[in-house]
């Protein structure tokens, strides 16, 4: 392995990471960007350099924006460590990573985490059946392999990405059997006061409306205010059941793609021991940070959706702000210079975020979905722990996520609680009458990405600094 100690390491190759790396390198800082994928782009601009032109067009102009970011990063002097998975990060800024089966340790003077978002996992009856997938998985297949479902699809959930995916599928010729929107109808009212500010970033709204019009025109059955979503079938998905305007409906489908919005990917900040807050508007945990992205751990920054959901454009700016603060902390630029260089990014970022309060209010998920009311619904897929088992233990006095984890093993499987921690927070709070912040977040335990005994045994520790 090459250089194992860097002045700055950036984890994540999406918009925040790419722009942070390009800016830091531009100022002469020797930095490296670590990313799981084989090419830059992250989730949002996945495969941006290699996607065939017709597919890229289908993905829309926002997607194409990633090209410029990737290019600027490629042109910079930043080191690029692709196909590298970080399985450990600690408060001393030591990183355990694996590339091509080889585990090794890296360290840095400063780290910017640009881990991005993940789809919010929402357990509902039948969500673990084969044939039920998250919409993001559908998007990955489309972006990387041009694959779309053959036999039609039911889309269900809430949030802008659901609409976007429906629109992309429509144009790719996929049969959309139905779009089931679980956003409560009452949200229209609660979001209304936030609309004027949102109009300042109206391109987001107009785009959303345009998607809806296209889908309607194409005759896609759209159900609003859907509840009691259920996936059913022996061995694999056969039917999707839901309630709409008081009536139970059933659709036949081999594929159900769900999307319930995105939440910050906090495995890295958790592993490092950063403090996290519950964000009631975004209904998720996110790391504490100042307005440069600096976390509760000295020398560790977070930028982009990993810090709280604000979208791809905002992430670019946040990446640059974090990089500027890092440069300042290393005395490579003065405070005044940092502040001056940050002005435009800060303005753009604020402007871009005008839409957020409206989106957050509009797409608030109902408690009846988040608290997993059906006792037999599996919450922890790894350890197969049901909502009922969790509730039983909360009623038994284990009203803290970590105690619950010790006791039920919920969150102790290979995903390390990534899939269940949010649902557990909602269930424990609902059942115990506590506020969610009081229920506590699962303590992060490494490794946060797969690591085998063989890889660990073969890890080169001699060269470690």
């Amino acid at each position, binding site marked *: 392995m090459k250089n194992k100690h860097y002045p700055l390491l950036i984890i994540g190759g999406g918009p925040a990471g790419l722009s942070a790396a390009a800016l830091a390198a531009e100022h002469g800082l020797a930095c490296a960007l670590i990313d799981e994928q084989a090419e830059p782009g992250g989730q949002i601009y996945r495969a941006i350099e290699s996607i065939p032109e017709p597919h890229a067009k289908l993905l829309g102009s926002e997607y194409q924006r990633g090209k410029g970011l990737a290019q600027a990063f490629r042109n910079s002097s930043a080191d690029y460590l692709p196909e590298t998975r970080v399985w450990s990060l600690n408060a001393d800024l030591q990183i355990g990573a694996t590339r091509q089966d080889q585990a090794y340790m890296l360290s840095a003077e400063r780290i910017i985490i640009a881990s991005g978002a993940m789809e919010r996992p929402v357990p509902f009856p039948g969500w673990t059946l084969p044939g039920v997938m998250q919409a993001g998985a559908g998007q990955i297949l489309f972006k990387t392999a041009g694959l779309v479902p053959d036999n039609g699809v039911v889309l269900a959930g809430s949030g802008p990405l659901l609409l976007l995916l429906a629109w992309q599928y429509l144009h790719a010729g996929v049969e959309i059997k139905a779009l089931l929107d679980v956003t409560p109808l009452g949200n229209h009212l609660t979001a209304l006061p936030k609309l004027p500010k949102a109009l300042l970033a109206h391109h987001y709204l107009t785009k959303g409306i345009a998607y809806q019009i296209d889908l309607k025109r194409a005759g896609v059955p759209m159900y609003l205010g859907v509840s009691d979503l259920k996936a059913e079938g022996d061995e694999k998905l056969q039917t999707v059941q839901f309630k709409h305007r008081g009536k139970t409906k059933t659709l036949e489908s081999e594929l159900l793609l769900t999307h319930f919005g995105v939440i910050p990917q906090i495995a890295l900040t958790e592993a490092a021991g950063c403090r996290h807050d519950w964000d009631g508007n975004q209904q998720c945990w996110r790391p504490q940070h100042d307005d440069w992205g600096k976390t509760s751990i000295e020398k560790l920054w977070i930028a982009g959706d990993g810090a709280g959901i604000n979208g791809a454009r905002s992430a670019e700016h946040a990446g640059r702000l974090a990089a500027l603060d890092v440069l300042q902390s290393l005395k490579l630029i003065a405070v005044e210079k940092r502040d001056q260089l940050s002005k435009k990014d800060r303005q753009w970022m604020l402007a871009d975020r005008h839409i957020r309060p409206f989106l957050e209010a509009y797409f608030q998920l109902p408690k009846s979905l988040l608290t997993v009311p059906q006792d037999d619904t599996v919450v922890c897929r790894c350890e197969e722990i049901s909502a009922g088992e969790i509730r039983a233990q909360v009623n038994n006095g284990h009203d803290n996520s970590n105690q619950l984890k*010790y*006791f039920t093993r919920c969150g102790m499987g290979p995903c390390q609680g990534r899939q269940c921690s949010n649902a557990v927070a909602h269930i424990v709070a609902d059942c115990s009458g506590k506020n969610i912040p009081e229920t506590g977040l699962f303590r992060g335990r490494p490794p946060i990405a797969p690591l085998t*005994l*063989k890889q660990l*045994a073969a*890890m080169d520790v001699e060269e470690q600094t």
Partner: protein
Amino acid sequence: MNSDVIIIGGGLMGASCALQLSMRGLQCIVLEKDSPGRHASGANAGGLRQLNRDPAEIPLTVEAAKMWRNIEALVDSDCDARFPGQIRLAENKQDLAKLQQRADLVTQLGYHHEEMIGEDELYQLVPTLTPGCVGGLICRQDGYGRPYHTLTAFRRKAESLGAQFISDAKVQSIQQQGESWQINTDQERYSGGVLLNCAGAWANQIAEQLDETVPLEPRALMLMVTERLPHFVDPVLGAASRKLSFKQMQNGTVIIGGAQIAKLDFAREHTEIDWPTMVECAKTVLRFFPQLGDVRIVRAWAGIEAIMPDNIPVIDASQTFANAYHAFGFSAHGYQLSPIIGRIMAGLITDGKTDFPLHPFRINRFQTENA
């Protein structure tokens, strides 16, 4: 709040003492600065091991083993305890000689729980073990349990008999006023006739308040656990000349330890896994089970333990104050002893005596040596 006994520390020792004292009709309050079992008691490897203990601990561990066999009668839960035996592996003649010496020592002391086995029996017991080992030292009654479940069972049973566990109550000061102990916590003030220090890695701070200095060192021992695997090994395994603790649990996961030490920020109560150190641990596992190379490590963690210089606990009455007692410093092997410690302490507190030889565990043994 007032009670007969104030126990400081809501770990397994505190819970076991609370249970035994409650069974004898005494009112107990257990003060826990965090939540019960937050550190070593919830995060240990769960070994139920008599094998290879310090000779001073043998009378205690043998009696504890009897209690474990019947643990459900005591706490209404089997604590997921299983008894497939524990074996220390011998890789060569030197190892065998070392283990034989140990076996002879145990026999001389009049005990029979540890015995030598040869290569044939070893491979009958562990057919999946890599070829080349030559035998081992076995304790057939040993096994493992689930620590947090055990703690909860002890706590629940004690609570059902009237004991009270107070979480998030950090002790600020301790004073003896007349016949009574006054304990100020960051919550409220508690008082009781007897004080019992079961504060684990923090016990020296409590002892300090009683003007007793003990060379306790807090340390966090690392453990890791694998993904679930088909059943492949019954006994818990250690090795005569390597750091290893290796067991497959009921659910198929394998817990791997070996007394490797994590980085510890004691003031913040924060542990960091030291991966370069864990490399040795992974190598040792693959030395004995090369077929596990592609098995995924799911989680690594470290619980904060109290380590004494001689690796045996303090089990004693206070030498400076009447009506104060200590049970701490179990040096990363207290889990198995926990049921008997409750009985011993309850005996000391209620009858002023115990049948067990506690001389090796006295609190002032370190001063005596220095003097």
